[in-house]
């Protein structure tokens, strides 16, 4: 049993990324005595620790920072606030009422917390989960793995990779490659357009990397290391491109394995926990914030969610949040809608600490009308246009107060 680990605390935070660290600071500022951050890596800071590029920190520090500097500042602030940060501690199980099972270098332990905040973040969808064919050589990496190798360890995994995907993170991978003198041979996107917003899409041109839209990566070749890939373009023809690596970017999914193995309810649509307006899970001892809620937001947004969660939990401990009750359950009635959260809305948008907006995502470009139905009656309908992987918000005040049942969102798409 690890000697100096406490066996109980007011609030335990699982995950020391931007969301978890922001929550820790907020809780301490609200005067909560014992706040323990449990981080499985040897250093806290989360994913920004290995994003050696801009832009981070505008919202939090009012300046433009690189990921590692940003992470270091978040950690320093949390330490100064008096939060107890424990690294190399993995939470292995979430038990009823806030009891956590832990693994540490000194063996296993238990921690009983009055409240737990889950902030375990996201990971990218692997080559396997995408069912990409071919052989299984070394040199096929996610952006996260690439960045860890380059920025944390100074390793150069390959020199001429193909980049798959055009979400924002794919452009991070281009910057990361540039940092190590790696020259991608192509950037490949199955969709007809670039997923990320406008300035990012100028980057391949600037770096003179061919951007191939409407193109599938169907097979990876090579025995011990990648020697090339097969690409199928809009003309349906397969062409072989020589490369010594593949960067499989984006397709984020919440790091929810702990959650899925626990007693807490999971939303299959978001892949994260099922929460109410306070960020509270199906067991009211547990809250969640940051990218675990959904894939994927910026560090700044996750940080703000963490800060809010910290304040909410402090209020819950000191004054008491409204008790959980059945209210409206958000239901999505269109394949174009990917997820919406919070999933449960039971309180007025004016109750203290209630979330003010619903967060949405769509699965494909949508142009049409969004409507809300309750008990078979349409309450409202409004014009709606959206692109995938973009933040969409809707004021919670647009949902009726004090009702129970299914709040069904529908989309009528305009014929193209």
């Amino acid at each position, binding site marked *: 049993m690890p000697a100096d680990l406490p066996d109980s605390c007011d609030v335990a935070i699982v995950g020391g990324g931007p969301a978890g660290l922001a929550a820790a600071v907020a809780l301490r500022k609200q005067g909560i005595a014992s706040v323990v951050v449990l981080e*499985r890596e*040897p250093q806290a800071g989360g994913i920004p620790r*290995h994003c050696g590029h801009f832009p981070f920190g505008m919202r939090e520090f009012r300046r433009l920072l690189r990921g590692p500097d940003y992470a270091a500042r978040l950690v320093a602030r949390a330490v100064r606030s008096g939060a107890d940060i424990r690294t*190399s501690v*993995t939470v*292995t199980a979430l038990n009823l009422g806030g009891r956590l099972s832990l*693994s*540490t*270098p*000194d*063996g*296993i332990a238990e921690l009983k917390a009055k409240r737990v905040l889950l902030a375990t973040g996201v*990971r*990218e969808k*692997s*080559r*396997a*989960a995408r*069912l*990409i*064919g*071919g*052989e*299984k*050589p*070394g*040199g096929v*990496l*996610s952006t*996260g*793995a690439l960045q*860890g*190798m380059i920025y*944390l*360890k100074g*390793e*150069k*995994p*390959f*020199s*001429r990779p193909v980049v798959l995907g055009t979400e924002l993170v794919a452009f991070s991978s281009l910057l990361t490659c540039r940092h190590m003198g790696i020259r991608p041979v192509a950037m490949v996107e199955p969709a007809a357009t670039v997923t990320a917003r406008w300035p990012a899409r100028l980057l391949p041109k600037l770096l003179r990397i061919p951007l191939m839209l409407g193109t599938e990566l*169907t*097979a990876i070749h*090579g*025995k*011990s*290391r*990648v*020697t090339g890939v097969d690409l199928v373009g809009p003309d349906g023809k397969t062409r072989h491109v020589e490369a*010594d*690596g593949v960067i499989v970017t984006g397709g984020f*999914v919440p*790091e929810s*394995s702990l959650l*899925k*193995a626990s007693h807490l309810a999971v939303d*299959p649509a978001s892949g994260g926990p099922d929460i109410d307006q306070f960020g509270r899970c199906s067991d009211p001892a547990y809250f969640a914030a940051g990218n675990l809620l959904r894939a994927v937001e910026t560090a700044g947004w996750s940080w703000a969610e963490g800060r809010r969660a910290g304040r909410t939990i402090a209020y819950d401990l000191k004054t008491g949040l409204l008790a959980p009750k059945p209210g409206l359950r958000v239901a999505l009635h269109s394949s174009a809608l990917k997820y919406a959260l919070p999933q449960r809305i039971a309180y007025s948008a004016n109750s203290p600490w209630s979330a003010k907006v619903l967060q949405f995502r769509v699965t494909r470009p949508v142009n049409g009308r969004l409507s809300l139905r309750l008990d078979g009656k349409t309450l409202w309908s409004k014009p709606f246009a959206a692109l995938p992987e973009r933040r969409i918000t809707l004021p919670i005040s647009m949902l009726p107060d004090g009702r129970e049942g299914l709040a069904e969102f529908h989309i009528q798409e305009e014929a193209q």
Partner: protein
Amino acid sequence: MSRDGLPSGVFDVAVIGAGVIGCAIARRFTLEGARVIVIEKALDILDGASKGNSAILHTGFDAPPGSLELACIKAGYAEYLQIHERLNLPLLRSGAMVLAWTEEQEAALPALMEQARTNGIADVQALTAREARELEPGIADTLRAAFRVPREYLVDPWSAPHAYLLQAIENGAVLQRNCEVTGGIYDGVAWRLDTSLGGIEARLVVNAAGLYGDIVDERLTGRRDFHIKPRKGQFVVYDKPAARLAAHILLPVPSKTTKGIVVCRTIYGNLLVGPTAEEQEARDIAELSPKVLASLRHRGEEILPGLAGEDVTAIYAGLRPATEYKDYKIRAREGQAYITAGGIRSTGLSSALGVARYVQALAVRLGIPARTMPDPAWPRLPAMTDEGKRDWQCAGNGGIVCHCELVTRREIEQAMTGPLAPQTLGGLKRRTRVTMGRCQGFYCSADLAEMTRDRLTVGMTGSADAG
């Protein structure tokens, strides 16, 4: 050591190939007092057919009655049950069910059960669809009938052969990797094998070259008794939450050519669907096809509707060393002190220990004496499944490096040392399971690259052309 770096002197037995069959044979001969060398052409052991299989420990209920395959499976199964605890090898007593979805398949069940009884598997049990679905509520309601084979189990396809070879090595056997046997001659007393690293001498040669069995026969004896026709099997592995959907190994009614698509848990708590059976020429490439993988997902969902929406953790393919014959091709060549253990197509993991006994008995008839070791060493493999206490639960583990499979720094360090230390990342994965979980290296690749830097022949960084 000789000048070329190879161990010198005349060995009693040279085993060609370190697949599961070669590993088991090396163990058996060592335990029977022989001085053994195992020669493997790849950088690491288990690089051929034994790299990817379904990991079922078969009873032999569906093997052809009277076949050598059946005899070896039964002997191998019995010995595995006897020794697995001593070697700390896991065993998941899952049981299997053979499922019939059509009228025709239903009609085939009684004969299959009769065959099982003929094969000495007396405890098979007929089940109505309702009974089957009471035992396995996840199965689709289109099921017509089934029968249960209670003693079909699941094992770890990698730690078992590692343990066999490790026990051989700890009792005096020698392993030579990265060493291809290219030819050889027998002078009436001993073999002199030509290898890519130089000459090796042995009184008896055992060909356990799996997918290259016919080629090695040709190189050493000038003829082949069979031709290898590689048969590929692709798999989809689901993330651990899917394992709740089936406790038994779910088998289809077999066709003439294949055991068919299986759904079962893995010893590590995942769920797999596969394998396909696709004939091909190449012996060294097992390509994955997105279409076939998607069809496996689809088939899995037909059997277990709850699989829809479950996440995929891994995809892989293996090659069976099939031949033009149905049965194993194990035979000794009189006057040549040479035994071939070939064509061990789709049941080698189960039968390996039995094959090894059979081969050793043939060797005695060739005049190779057996002097059973009185008190051999019994190495214990590190516990990698949740069946035993894992290292992350113990003090001094150095912290967890692979978060998905909870692999510790100490486990990786231990795997990186010793007589069976890996030479490739694939080898390290098979010994520790690093990067084999749901994130496939998103979180731990950086740490692994650092930990393995300059310690693997094929490392995690560098291009193909740079080696």
